[in-house]
């Protein structure tokens, strides 16, 4: 096929056939405004904000979905184009609840930014949006249809990336709305609360349930001993909210900030990630040696757990019984830590900072408690922490680096890679290899399972056993592996599944935007943090070893079962 020559705004350019006008413009560094367009999604062509003039065409064309043609002459900056774009935005505004000043996306809204950039100064059209009740039926996600601009990004991510399909177009034409079927709330349908819809929403139509005020309240309550844990993926993404490059590691500054605002102890979820590896690694070995259900599936990702409970309950026996690191942390904070420091567990409040919206729902699960006392009390997303930081006026970039508190502050490189897809697998194999063979693992980097690819596989020789593993991120990819298991064709020993594309670095609670380019940088941040860690294998974590000596006695022991393991429910 021959290349296509065209002219855009007076510049000649040659591109491959099939290139859209928008893509050709990008090559010339001509910045076309877009709204429904998302770099990681299919072309939708519904908002028409990207219109341009093509010589010989009566009507303006949407540049995102118009392929180039030989000899085409395109104009992107004429009065007609500018006015049409502005009109499109005015029409969208007439159907949008524009309470920007109090909107959760004030400052990060794509519609707001476009209205500013394209100089929209009139909002005179009749307002035709209906103020429908806000759906806050569940602990994780809130939907406000009065803000929805019907771009369909959330539908695409829910159906095509996650294979969940909790929401879709309802009705038609100007009555069209995006919502769960049969006038139900999200809590009544098979939503897994992954929050991927939030990450792609250009406006404030979907957001996480705000728990910030609860944290400020407990911090001022003198009768409470408030401890906080920070998940691995938060440290490589929070900086984006403060103008740092994606992947910048700001762990020490986060610790300093959390101490400054009054947390009694600042701990690291990495500690219980290491612990998870010990428990889960031993569970895997137990299953292999005792004819247990294989392949074993990881259990750290609560969106994934909700998915298998809803869609593949017949495979629940494959799921590791280990609680997630968040929940293990909470359980230990209110038992081991409480005992050791002579604090009444009922006076301890456990706060988590997570890259995840599903973690909010996980913390509320009935079985995630000990004698009626929840393991984890309040979960904030990375974005909510950023909001707290801004609200407190403390300049996080100016803070000194500080260290996590003992004993749950000591962790390894194996724990930090939990934040990226493939990390749990790599960390587990580092430990399983050494536990089984009693030899030191020389090359500890398992590169086959790293990166954003949807499904990854590897084979590792552990003693006499060829361990075959697979890793999936994004639930549509998980489904491929689950179907293989159902058909009896999955000869893996161990499968890691993360609900969100890219793993936790791409979680539903992470800074927006979180495009694939940005995710790749976060992944790099994660592996950088691993490579500079002093200890890089979970079973070498001295604090974890001490925990076993002092308290848990042995992996999969009685105390572990009571505090660190759980069970699942058929929700189909």
């Amino acid at each position, binding site marked *: 096929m021959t290349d296509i020559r065209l002219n855009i705004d007076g510049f000649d350019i040659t591109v491959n056939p099939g290139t859209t006008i928008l893509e050709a413009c990008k090559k010339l560094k001509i910045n076309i405004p877009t709204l429904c367009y998302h770099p990681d999604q299919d072309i939708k062509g519904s908002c028409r904000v990207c219109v341009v003039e093509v010589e010989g065409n009566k009507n303006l064309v949407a540049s995102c979905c118009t392929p180039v043609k030989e000899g085409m002459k395109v104009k992107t900056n004429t009065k007609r184009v500018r006015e049409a774009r502005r009109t499109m935005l005015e029409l969208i505004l007439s159907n949008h609840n524009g309470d920007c000043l109090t909107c959760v996306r004030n400052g990060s809204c794509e519609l707001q930014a476009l209205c500013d950039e394209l100089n929209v100064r009139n909002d005179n059209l009749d307002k035709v949006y209906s103020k429908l009740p806000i759906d806050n039926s569940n602990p994780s996600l809130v939907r406000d249809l009065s803000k929805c601009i019907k771009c369909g990004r959330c539908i695409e991510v829910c*159906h095509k990336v996650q294979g*969940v*399909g*909790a*929401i*879709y*177009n*309802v*009705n*038609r034409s100007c009555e069209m709305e995006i919502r*769960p*079927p*049969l006038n139900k709330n999200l809590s009544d*349908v*098979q939503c897994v609360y992954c929050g991927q819809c939030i990450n792609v929403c250009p406006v404030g139509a979907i957001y996480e349930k705000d728990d910030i005020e609860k944290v400020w309240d407990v911090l001022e309550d003198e009768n409470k001993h408030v401890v906080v844990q920070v998940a691995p993926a938060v440290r490589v993404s929070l900086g984006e909210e403060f103008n740092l490059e994606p992947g910048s590691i700001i762990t020490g500054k986060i610790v300093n900030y959390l101490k400054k605002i009054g947390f009694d102890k600042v701990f690291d979820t990495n500690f219980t990630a290491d612990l998870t590896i010990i428990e889960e690694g031993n569970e895997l070995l137990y299953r292999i040696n005792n004819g247990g259900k294989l392949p074993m599936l990881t259990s750290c990702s609560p969106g994934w757990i909700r998915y298998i409970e809803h869609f593949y309950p017949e495979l629940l026996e494959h799921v590791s019984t280990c609680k997630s690191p968040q929940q293990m942390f909470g359980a230990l904070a209110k038992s081991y830590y409480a005992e050791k420091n002579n604090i009444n567990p009922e006076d301890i409040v456990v706060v988590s900072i997570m890259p995840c919206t599903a973690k909010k729902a996980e913390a509320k699960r009935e079985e995630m408690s000990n004698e009626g006392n929840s393991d984890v009390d309040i979960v904030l997303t990375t974005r909510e922490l950023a909001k707290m930081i801004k609200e407190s006026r403390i300049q996080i970039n100016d803070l000194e680096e500080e260290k996590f508190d003992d004993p749950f502050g000591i962790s390894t490189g194996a724990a930090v890679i939990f934040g990226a897809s493939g990390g749990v697998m790599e960390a587990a194999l580092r430990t399983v290899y050494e536990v089984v063979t009693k030899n030191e693992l020389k090359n500890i980097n398992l590169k086959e399972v790293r990166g954003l690819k949807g499904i990854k596989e590897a084979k590792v020789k552990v003693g006499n056993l060829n361990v075959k593993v697979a890793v999936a991120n994004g639930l549509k990819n998980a489904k491929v592996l689950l179907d293989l298991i159902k058909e009896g064709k999955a000869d893996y020993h161990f499968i890691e599944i993360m609900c969100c594309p890219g793993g936790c670095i791409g979680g539903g609670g992470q800074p927006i935007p979180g495009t694939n380019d940005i995710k790749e940088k976060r992944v790099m941040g994660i592996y950088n943090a691993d490579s500079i860690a002093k200890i890089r294998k979970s079973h070498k974590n001295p604090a974890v070893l001490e925990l076993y000596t002092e308290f848990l006695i042995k992996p999969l022991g009685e105390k572990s079962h009571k505090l660190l393991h759980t069970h699942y429910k058929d929700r189909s």
Partner: protein
Amino acid sequence: MDFKKKVLDIIKNKGETSDKLLEILLEVQNKTKGKYLSEEALIIISNELKIPLSKVYGVATFYSMISTKKRGKYLVQICNSSPCYLNGGKMVTKTFEKLLNIKVGETTKDNLFTLEYTSCIGACDIAPAIKINDEVYGNLTPEKIKSLLNVLRKEDVK
């Protein structure tokens, strides 16, 4: 015959693939009392065709010939595409609403009539036109509508 079996039979007849969704929705609706798709029917279809319920519901609410609300014995569908609209479609709506004492989208208390809008039914030559169940009626005037309703009411008594 119980309802579930009836729906499953229709699906089996039409074929258990996602491309048959629309045919199945229409057939199940036709075989359901009240000419609509109940929650139960939608869930069975979603499970059998392995299409998310949200999508099945989305398709069902997209097409005006499909309803997710129970309908009356006579389904009056008023065309609101341009030719009918320009030729007195508004009068047709007003007359029906007045005579039946319901709004478009509603069903009379005696479950006899349901009023709905539809897009073009191909009767532009006799605009303004409506469809009542499978019959098309055109060149409507308020008088014609009145006598039409009277005929249908009498038919029902028979």
